């Protein structure tokens, strides 16, 4: 007769039958009945109705039956608290039983009955059991304190159980010590500030002694507890390490890992030049390697941990590459983890071995694994620079196999290699292009398109290749569509003449025929960019991309630091901080651990950072692919600085904002945009850039400039200090600072060119955009010698005012293009308008009066100049220095009125009345001019001149 029949009872009235059996006189029958009850309980049937009957069976001297009854009680006491009281007497009695097994059983079960009323009765028996003569009872009682604490923490404290528990740390039986440590550790977790587990050298010594005698499981509790201790100095830390090291050869992997955790942590304290440090490092490798011959489940957990250790201390396992080679019968998840570690360990010394192995994997049959292997080759290339060439040739070999998924994966990784080593391996592009037709996966197609776009100038038939992709544009996945759009725009910017049609086609496909908002947005952005300012477009789209590095897949250092403290725990398997998956209440404890780690690490300057990071949400490490995708997006390219003139850039910004907000509202506006684009395309081709660089603004903007232009002849004015116009980081190392000055009637632009790049700069040239007053260089930029790295040169460029005129906003804005052998850079600056005040700006008195009257009052503007402490004569003198001439002076009621005139280089007269009242630091200026737009600038000149 077997017990399995209990699981098959589904008859009606079953409960009733069981009841009868439970109340039977025969012991055997009773036992059978309780077994049936428990079988029902296991499969989830509700047998709580039998509670009183089962409890009745409790009073028995048969240990087997007693255990079964207790099992039942633990399960149902909570739902029947009142009934559970019935059992209390038996429990209390059992706690006094001469048989230690029964005493322990009673105290263990009582702790599992999570009913408040019972806990009151539990205290006395528990106190006795904690002092029991039998260690089996004591160790059970120690755990029971933790159980009781979970139900009623206050009670445990009031009853003084915690002190008894602390005493148990010094118990003679190691099993009791281990359980006491475990219980105290758990209780301490919920009291982060209490000094429950007072780890001092004495207790540590006791624990280390118990460590040698404990069972394997007890050793784990003790080691985990040791890991929370912070040694006072490196000597103590070394002596603990020495006593823990023997655990590394234990057969139980959990013991080994707990020991590794302690050692990894205490190692931080040891000086690196210590001999012992090196010895310890050597001792860590073998146990980690041994873990790899365990069951696959353990292997996986071990590999996840090794992954962390390798990132933190690659030296431990650097000679053990071979053990991470994949065995053909490893489960796939173990294989993938091994691959990851192989790459992390790859170095110049072992790369040949690794590559040979990876190439082998790439010919296996498991597709997923093969793909990962090919990716791994790419990651090796990026990690070990010396091996890049070998990796590329390995990849080419793999491409020659013509196995579809291998080829595709290889192309994806070659793209990454191009990103890391630009202009080095482009010779392979031809081979890649041969395989164009076989690509059917989006990622591979996108990668290929990226390569074609990026190197369009070196691929003769790039336009044909891209066009072939364009045919099925709408059937492609988004990834490919986006890439195709970008690639064609790149191609257009590189070969504008042949590809206009293509770019227009793709833009209209992306913006008009697609319902994917991402694609439409990107399409519109390109479209606007190209139509308003192809130069800026070039700068944005063809901007230099940052090199990718292998760090992209590393765990962020603060997180790694934290995870190292959690080696051998779930955190180390998930590679997430515990706070990410353990319920909130545990956060406190976890912070304490990291804090102590921080302070344990004497050289680390910011101990707070680890703790701070622990509260941050889990850091998401972008995979290489993601990062690459992002970089290819426009968003991350540095914004084009000063290229387009402000009105245009304002509009452009607006357009972008609108695109970000409501796209549909823009669809109408777009039609206008497209005609503007046509106009833009016709004239300026980016290749001929400097010559036509002011062209982009011409389209439809004519009505914006007026200001009728007279021409004047300038004289001499003081200058402001130089300011930075073009920072080096925006101009590939060329920094320009400058100012304007008027010397002897000639306007000069005084600049300092500073070469902060590593290479020599030559072939400087300068050009201005049209501006409000027709400023233009009067001659070429006089830089005859090449500008070496870290050299600077001062130049003064005389300016004329006969250049083309266009009204700027603000009026005195000047847009400048500077070219050198490297590139063309754009910046804008503002010149003080008094540069333009000519020396013969003194008006005849009568003319002044007539003119003053003649100019309509609407054109008059009044400004206040505050905090000026000059008297009227001093002011007059000062202003004269800026070619502002005083014609007459009147004093009315203690207030001086100065009448002044000035003339701009284009013949515009400005008349002014300056009122100065003695004792009042506030001046009032009234300006009258036929072109009132200049008033604001003139006022600024007044303010600058008077306060100077």
């Amino acid at each position, binding site marked *: 007769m077997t017990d399995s029949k209990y699981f098959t009872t589904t008859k009606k009235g079953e409960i009733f039958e069981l009841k009868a059996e439970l109340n039977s006189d025969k012991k055997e029958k009773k036992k059978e009945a309780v077994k049936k009850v428990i079988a029902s309980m296991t499969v989830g049937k509700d047998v709580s109705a039998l509670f009183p009957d089962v409890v009745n069976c409790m009073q028995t001297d048969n240990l087997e039956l007693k255990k079964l009854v207790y099992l039942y009680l633990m399960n149902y006491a909570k739902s029947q608290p009142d009934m559970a009281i019935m059992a209390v007497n038996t429990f209390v009695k059992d706690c006094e039983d001469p048989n230690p097994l029964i005493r322990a059983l009673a105290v263990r079960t009582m702790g599992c009955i999570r009913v408040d009323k019972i806990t009151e009765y539990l205290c006395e028996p528990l106190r006795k059991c904690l002092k029991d003569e039998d260690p089996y009872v004591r160790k059970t009682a120690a755990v029971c304190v933790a159980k009781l604490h979970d139900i009623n923490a206050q009670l445990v404290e009031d009853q003084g159980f915690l002190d008894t528990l602390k005493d148990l740390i010094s118990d003679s039986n190691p*099993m009791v010590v281990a359980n006491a440590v475990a219980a105290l550790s758990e209780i301490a977790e919920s009291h982060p500030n209490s000094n429950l587990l007072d780890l001092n050298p004495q207790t540590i010594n006791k624990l280390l002694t118990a460590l040698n005698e404990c*069972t394997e499981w007890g050793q784990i509790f003790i080691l985990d507890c040791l890991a929370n201790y912070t040694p006072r100095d490196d000597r103590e830390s070394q002596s603990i390490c020495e006593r823990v090291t023997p655990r590394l050869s234990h057969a139980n992997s959990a013991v080994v890992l707990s020991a590794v955790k302690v050692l990894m942590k205490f190692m931080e304290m040891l000086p690196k030049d210590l001999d012992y440090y090196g010895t310890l490092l050597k001792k860590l490798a073998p146990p980690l390697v041994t873990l790899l011959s365990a069951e696959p489940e353990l292997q996986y957990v071990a590999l996840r941990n090794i992954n962390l250790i390798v990132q933190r201390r690659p030296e431990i396992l650097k000679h053990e590459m071979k053990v991470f080679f994949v065995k053909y019968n490893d489960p796939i998840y173990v294989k993938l983890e091994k691959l990851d570690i192989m790459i992390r360990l790859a170095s110049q010394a072992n790369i040949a071995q690794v590559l040979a192995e990876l190439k082998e994997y790439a010919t296996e049959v498991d597709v997923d694994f093969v793909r990962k292997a090919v990716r791994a080759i790419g990651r090796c290339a990026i990690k070990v620079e010396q091996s890049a060439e070998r990796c590329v040739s390995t990849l080419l070999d793999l491409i020659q196999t013509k196995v579809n998924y291998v080829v595709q994966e290889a192309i994806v990784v070659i793209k990454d290699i191009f990103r890391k080593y630009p202009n080095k391996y482009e010779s392979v592009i031809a081979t890649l292009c041969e395989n164009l037709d076989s690509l059917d996966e989006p990622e591979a197609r996108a990668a290929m398109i990226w390569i074609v776009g990026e190197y369009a100038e070196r691929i003769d038939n790039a336009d044909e290749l891209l066009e072939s992709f364009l045919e099925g544009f709408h059937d492609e996945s988004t990834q490919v569509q986006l890439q195709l759009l970008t690639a064609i725009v790149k191609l257009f910017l590189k070969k504008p003449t042949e590809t206009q049609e293509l770019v227009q086609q793709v833009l209209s496909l992306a913006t008009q025929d697609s319902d994917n908002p991402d694609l439409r947005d990107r399409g519109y952005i390109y479209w606007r960019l190209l139509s308003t300012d192809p130069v800026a477009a070039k700068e944005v789209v063809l901007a230099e991309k940052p090199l990718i590095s292998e760090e992209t897949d590393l765990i962020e250092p603060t997180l790694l630091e934290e995870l190292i403290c959690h080696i051998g725990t*779930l955190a180390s398997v998930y590679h997430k901080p515990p706070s990410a998956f353990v319920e909130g209440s545990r956060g406190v404890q976890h912070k304490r651990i990291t804090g102590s780690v921080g302070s344990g690490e004497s050289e680390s300057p910011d101990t707070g950072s680890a703790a701070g990071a622990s509260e941050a949400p889990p850091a998401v490490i972008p995979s290489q692919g993601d990062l690459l995708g992002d970089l290819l997006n426009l968003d991350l390219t540095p914004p084009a600085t000063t290229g387009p003139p402000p009105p245009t850039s304002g509009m452009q910004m607006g357009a972008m904002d609108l695109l970000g907000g409501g796209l549909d509202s823009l669809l109408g506006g777009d039609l206008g945009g497209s005609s503007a684009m046509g106009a833009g395309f016709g004239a300026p081709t980016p290749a001929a850039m400097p010559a036509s660089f002011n062209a982009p603004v011409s389209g439809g903007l004519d009505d914006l400039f007026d200001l009728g232009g007279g021409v004047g002849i300038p004289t001499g004015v003081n200058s402001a200090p130089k300011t930075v116009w073009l920072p080096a980081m925006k101009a590939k190392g060329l920094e320009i600072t400058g100012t304007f000055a008027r010397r002897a009637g000639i306007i000069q632009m005084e600049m300092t060119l500073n070469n902060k790049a590593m290479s020599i700069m030559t072939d400087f040239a300068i050009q201005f955009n049209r501006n409000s007053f027709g400023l233009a260089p009067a001659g070429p930029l006089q830089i005859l010698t090449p500008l070496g790295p870290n050299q600077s040169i001062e130049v003064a460029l005389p300016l004329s005012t006969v250049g083309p005129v266009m009204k700027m906003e603000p009026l005195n804005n000047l847009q400048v293009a500077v070219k050198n052998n490297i590139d063309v850079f754009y910046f804008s600056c503002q010149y003080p308008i008094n540069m333009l005040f000519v020396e013969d700006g003194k008006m005849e008195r009568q003319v002044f009066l007539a003119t003053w009257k003649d100019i309509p009052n609407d054109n008059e503007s009044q400004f206040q100049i505050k905090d000026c402490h000059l008297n009227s004569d001093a002011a007059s003198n000062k202003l004269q220095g800026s070619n502002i001439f005083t014609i007459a002076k009147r004093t009315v009621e203690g207030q001086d009125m100065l009448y002044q005139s000035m003339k701009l280089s284009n013949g515009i007269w400005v008349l002014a009345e300056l009122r100065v009242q003695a004792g009042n630091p506030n001046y009032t200026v009234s300006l009258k001019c036929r072109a009132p737009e200049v008033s604001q600038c003139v006022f600024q000149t007044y303010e600058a001149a008077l306060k100077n």
Partner: protein
Amino acid sequence: MIGQIFILSSKGDRLIYKDFRGGAGSDDVGSFYEKVTALTGDQPPVVMTHKDLNFIHVRQGGLYWVATTTHDSSPFTVVEFLNRLTALVKDYCGSLSEKLVQMNFALIYELLDEVLDYGYVQTTSSDVLKNFIQTEAVSSRPFSLFDLSNVGLFGADTQQSKVAPSSAAARPIQSSREQGGKSEIFVDVIERMSVVIGSNGVVMKADVEGEIKVKCYMSSCSEMRIGLNEEFSIGKSQLRGYGAAVRVDECSFHEAVRLDEFDSQRVLRLCPSPGEQTVMQYQLSNDLPSAPPFRLFPTVERDSGGRLLMYMKLRCDLPPKTAAINVCATVPVPKGSVR
């Protein structure tokens, strides 16, 4: 700290369920089974998380052995514990199967109660446990179909009549008491050999994993000595005797084995505790000292219809008295292939 332990059949039925710390959700078992069955091939199954609960499981004997925890506890501890638990259940019930677990649920609950207290592992040593366990194991009938599938790990059924019958070791360790204390001890040497053979029949990789297991049915056993071949050598450095006849790359021993005489005389001394234990494990990879016991002669032909025809001839070079068990040849083919 382990929260709950449950054992599920391969179909997801609860065989054993125990909550150690209270406060377990109502359908944790269900959500585990849902998760584990939804896994795809390349997702690691070992550790899974569901809300605040973490599941760690191993699969043995066709059953899921699952532990849950809400803490950031050590997966090594849990996996190691689960492996020990399966070994214990195997020792106590004779072997592992859904039926046996079902039949012995009371015994397994009793075991669980002793090995875990409030989620803390107490002991997994059968030596200690024999003092506490009261329930007698119930074993299935000695010769069932089930036993045939498990043929021969202990006392493989071969022609040699000296060797004990196959079922000899597939019985609970405790039942020895009622059978009148028949003291028996079984020593088995199990070697698992994996060989990768290229399409041209050449051995590409070969490795051997071996272990010496002892299964002891004596409640208290005095010292036992196992002598190995004196030419036995470890690693390449320390060759003994004339050739490299008996050589392993690495080996490890059970913690209870005393190795005082191992270096000089290759003798292992131990006092086995009741139940099964692996006394020694060893590995050997790549250059095997002798040819593998099997040879494979593959021929691959491409026929006119685009099909590939593979013929494989396996030749066993073992002496006629010896037999190999569980021989399997795997031919990896791409996923799309059809027969």
